[in-house]
Structures are given as structure tokens and as C-alpha cells.
């Protein structure tokens, strides 16, 4: 019955649209090529701006500033990487845990609601995070956590103290950064975990794996490169984050791993934001030169991440 119901000319219907679809193909191809080129042009424009504006610093008379560019940028560079790494260290395990909870443990309704709230977290402006950090988090941490860390773990260089009473420390900044990068890592991890092929999960379960063993055997290896990509996007945001750090951190021109004292290395982005209004002439060039350094750091971090994500057998092959 169903066979005779099929229109006899079914295949001829395609013919008239063939030329238009070819044209559509060409238009779409052109648009996507244009988009790709636009990205490269934008990147090149930013890089060019940084190079041109930073150049005078390197050619400047050494007597212009009372320190060399390297010794100026070193603490900033250290502070940037230090703050971002600490944030990532805190955010990554939490994000993977939350993503697994949403993708594999929570009942559907709770998972959807939780996912929604986490996405909402990503929409909060960084200045709000900064204010929250300085007004809420800093006092709490400086009252109850930092003194304890100094007393009990003071033998570690990280908690050597003296503990800040204002709470405007590297630790506070890193916690706020961690909260800020949590949503993006969670969202990406959740997506890749949900895409784990059912076949792989069942293969593991059929061997007698418990849920956690199944996750270790099938879900995490499959999601590995996705999680790394998410972590790198988060790290990128933490490296470049300006406002929250500028509000929270009490900066000094030093390099230290002590995360609970008043003397902290600033980050490049926050330093630019703080110094730019009061800078003129070569000082502006110097700030832009630090921006160029940040640009390179981000570049290197991304390249490294790509290498890590592509090493080993990729889960996406199968």
C-alpha cells in the first residue's frame, strides 16, 4: 500500500532547486570565508596596535624610568599567571564535579535548574564580582580563614603571612576569579559529558562497573579534551580579568607566593586599568607593552592547551 502511495515523480522535485542551492552554497561559503578572514584581520589589527604602541618603550632612554621594562613587567607577569593558576586550581575540580552531577547524577529537573543557575553566574558583570569580593568575601576570609591558615599552615610559603586584616589578598582575588570561570568550565564539561556515546557507557556497565567506575572508564576519557578546552577558556578569562582584581587586590611591586598577605603582585590587566588614567607619554607606551606581554602569554597558554588536548588517543575518534 505505502509503496503505491509514493508520488511517481518524487525524484524530479529536486531538479528545479538545484541551481538555487548551488547559488546558496556559494553565498554561504563566501560568508563563512569572510567571517574567518575577519577574525584573522581583527587579531592582526590588535597585535599590530600593541606592537606599534609598545615599540617606543623598548627604544626609550634607560634613564626615562627608574627601572628596566623587564623588572617592571616581571612581578605583573608573575601575578597574572599566579592568580589565574590558583583560580583554575580551585575551579577545575569543582566545575568537573558539578558538570558530572548535572550530566550523570542529578534527577532531570534538578539538573536543568542547576544548569540554569550556573549559566546565570556567567552573566554577572565582573565589577559586581569585584564588589562582592571586597565587601563580602574579603572580610569573611580575613576574619576566619587567613588567621587560621597563618597559625596552622604558616610553615608553607603560601601561608607565611602576616595575614591581611583587610582581606585584599591574592587568595581573595583567586577565589573570586575561580567563581567567575566556574560557569564556562562547567558548561563545556557538561556538554561533552552528555555527549559520551551510550555504547561506551553501556560497555563499561556491562563489565560490572559501578557508576563512578563507568564515569572514570567511559565518560572522563571521552570528555578529556573538551574539559581541557573549557579549562583553557576559563584560564584565558582569568588571565585577562581586570575589574574584579583591580577592586580586590592590594598591589605591591613584588614577586611572592604568599597568598594571604597585604603585599601582592598585581596582574597585568588590573595594573593597566589602575595606572592608565594617571599615565601620559612613555608611561602609556609602557603599559601597552605589558599588554603585549599578556597577549603573548595567552597565545602560549592556548597553544599548550591545544597540544595537551590533542595528545593521547582522542575520545572523539570513536
Amino acid at each position, binding site marked *: 500500500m505505502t509503496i503505491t502511495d509514493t508520488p511517481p515523480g518524487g525524484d524530479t522535485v529536486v531538479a528545479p532547486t538545484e541551481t538555487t542551492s548551488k547559488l546558496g552554497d556559494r553565498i554561504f561559503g563566501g560568508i563563512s570565508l569572510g567571517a574567518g578572514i575577519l577574525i584573522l584581520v581583527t587579531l592582526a589589527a590588535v597585535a599590530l596596535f600593541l606592537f606599534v604602541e609598545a615599540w617606543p618603550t623598548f627604544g626609550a632612554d634607560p634613564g626615562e624610568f627608574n627601572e628596566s621594562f623587564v623588572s617592571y613587567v616581571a612581578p605583573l607577569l608573575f601575578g597574572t599567571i599566579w592568580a589565574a593558576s590558583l583560580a583554575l586550581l580551585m575551579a577545575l575540580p569543582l566545575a568537573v564535579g558539578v558538570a558530572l552531577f548535572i550530566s550523570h547524577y542529578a534527577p532531570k529537573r534538578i539538573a536543568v535548574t542547576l544548569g540554569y543557575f550556573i549559566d546565570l553566574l556567567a552573566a554577572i558583570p565582573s565589577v559586581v564580582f569585584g564588589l562582592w569580593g571586597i565587601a563580602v568575601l574579603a572580610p569573611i576570609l580575613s576574619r576566619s580563614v587567613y588567621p587560621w591558615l597563618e597559625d596552622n599552615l604558616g610553615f608553607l610559603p603560601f601561608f607565611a603571612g602576616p595575614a591581611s586584616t583587610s582581606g585584599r589578598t591574592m587568595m581573595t582575588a583567586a577565589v573570586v576569579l575561580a567563581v567567575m570561570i566556574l560557569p564556562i568550565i562547567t558548561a563545556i564539561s557538561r556538554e561533552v559529558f552528555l555527549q559520551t*556515546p551510550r*555504547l*561506551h*557507557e*553501556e*560497555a*563499561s*556497565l*556491562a*563489565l*560490572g*562497573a*559501578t557508576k563512578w*567506575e563507568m564515569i572514570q*572508564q*567511559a565518560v572522563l*576519557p*571521552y570528555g*578529556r579534551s573538551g574539559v581541557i578546552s573549557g579549562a583553557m577558556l576559563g584560564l584565558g578569562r582569568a588571565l585577562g580579568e581586570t575589574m574584579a582584581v583591580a577592586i580586590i587586590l592590594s598591589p605591591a611591586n613584588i614577586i611572592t607566593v604568599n597568598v594571604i598577605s597585604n603585599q601582592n603582585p598585581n596582574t597585568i590587566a588590573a595594573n593597566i586599568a589602575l595606572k592608565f588614567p594617571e599615565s601620559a607619554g612613555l608611561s602609556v607606551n609602557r603599559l601597552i607593552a605589558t599588554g603585549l606581554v599578556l597577549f603573548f602569554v595567552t597565545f602560549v597558554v592556548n597553544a599548550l592547551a591545544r597540544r595537551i588536548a590533542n595528545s*593521547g*588517543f*582522542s*575520545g572523539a*575518534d*570513536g
Partner: protein
Amino acid sequence: MTESVDTPISDVAVAALDAEIGLGNRIVVENLNIYYGDFLAVRDVNMVIEPRSVTALIGPSGCGKSTFIRSLNRMHEVIDGARVEGSVYVDGEDLYGPGVDPVAVRRKVGMVFQRPNPFPTMSIADNVLAGKRLNSRRINKSEAEDLVEKSLRGANLWEEVKDRLDKPGSGLSGGQQQRLCIARAIAVEPEILLMDEPCSALDPISTLAIEQLMNELKSTYTIVIVTHNMQQAARVSSRTAFFTIDGTGQPGYVVEMDDTDVMFSNPKQQSTIDYVTGRFG
């Protein structure tokens, strides 16, 4: 055997006794209804599956063969809302009894799936060891090597892969991948091996290899295979059960079960005759 007291059929007791004296693991299914939520997918299955033999489950698409075979190692529970009523006894023990851990059941009853599913991030050797590593975390190197060789030989794959055990399993052909999955399943030394259309994604030569393998494995394992291919059922199995369904939305059920040669030459039910002669399905 206390089971014999409270169950009407003595098959269970017989099976328990068989297992005790080393005759293998007979599976006894009693009044099994399988549900997805409120939907009854398979109704009222009563079946005895003989140890150390191949039992084939045949029937048209959607008749619940796969659902049924997955209920034999509690894999169907992986789907939300899936549940059963009734009992499945292995060695006289009800797999659905109170306090029975599905994880323990699956270690005893292995499964091979429709499409080969080696873990893509693992090497061939690691794939074989995947189940063993779950059971006993630490396994020393020579033991592991022995187990890999033994399992791969058991799955007729050793000669083809022995030089590339550290290469990813996803680089093998479909038939080799499926034999790798069988090696992975038998590495944990299950008593029963369930195969859900293991050849449906394979070419005829790979299919032949798997069928030969089943012939060898049946001396050690109790094998249940779901297949769409009636010739395959006739070639590999000693007993065959025919499932069917009265219409979409209706539950599937067992029409009849008998020795395979009887099922294909002289079945009792008209619908079985229609199916095996190709008049429907």
C-alpha cells in the same frame, strides 16, 4: 535448596543442583514482565536456558528480544524508568531478588552489543583488561599479559593483533573490534555471555568468524544470542525461542521455544511457521 519450597516450578531447584555439581549455569526465567515506565514491553516470559549451549532469540523488530536479553544481566535498568516483575534465576539465585547488586550480576553475566564498542581512548590490551581492572585494582604485569593473550586467543584475535597490543582498539576493523569486545567480556570470566545482534554491523566474513567463535565458546559458557538472521540462528544455536508482537504498543511475548532444528523444520505454532518461512517479519 529453599527455593524449591516457594517456587512452583522445580527447574530452579534443578538448576541450582546442576550448578552445584558443575553442570553449568542454567538460566530459569519465571513470569517475567518487563516495563519501561508504565509501558509493558515484554510480557510473561517463562523460559529455561540450557547451560553450555547457544540459545537463539529470534523474532521481528520491536518484539522485545533485545529488551529481554538485557534483562538477563540487568542492563535494561540503565534506561530511566525500566523495571521488571518476575524472576530470573541463575544457579538458583534470583537476579532480581532483594539485595542483589546489579553490578555483581553484570560481572557474572557478560554482554556483547550490537555495534562493536571498544573504549576509544584505550589500547587493545587495556580494552581487554578493562573489566579485570574493575574487579581487582592491582594486577601484576605478567598476569596481565597472560590474561590479554588468553582472552584474545579465546576470541580468535590474538594472531591478528599480537604485534600492536598498545595501539588503540578503534583502529581495528569492525569484525576485529567485535572480537575485541568478546575478548573483553570473557576476560572477566563470566559464566554467561549475552550477545545482542553481535553481527548486525559486520560483513559476512567477520560474521563467519564470530559464529565459529561462538561454536568454540559454548563449551565453556552459556550463550544467549539475539539475531535477526534466521540462518545464523539455525547455524549456531541448539535451542531457539521465537518472540513476536501483536501490533505496535502491544507487549512482545514468546510464541514458542524448542530445539533449533524443530523450530526451523516443524514448529507447532502457525506464526512461527510464517516467520521462519519468510512469510512475515
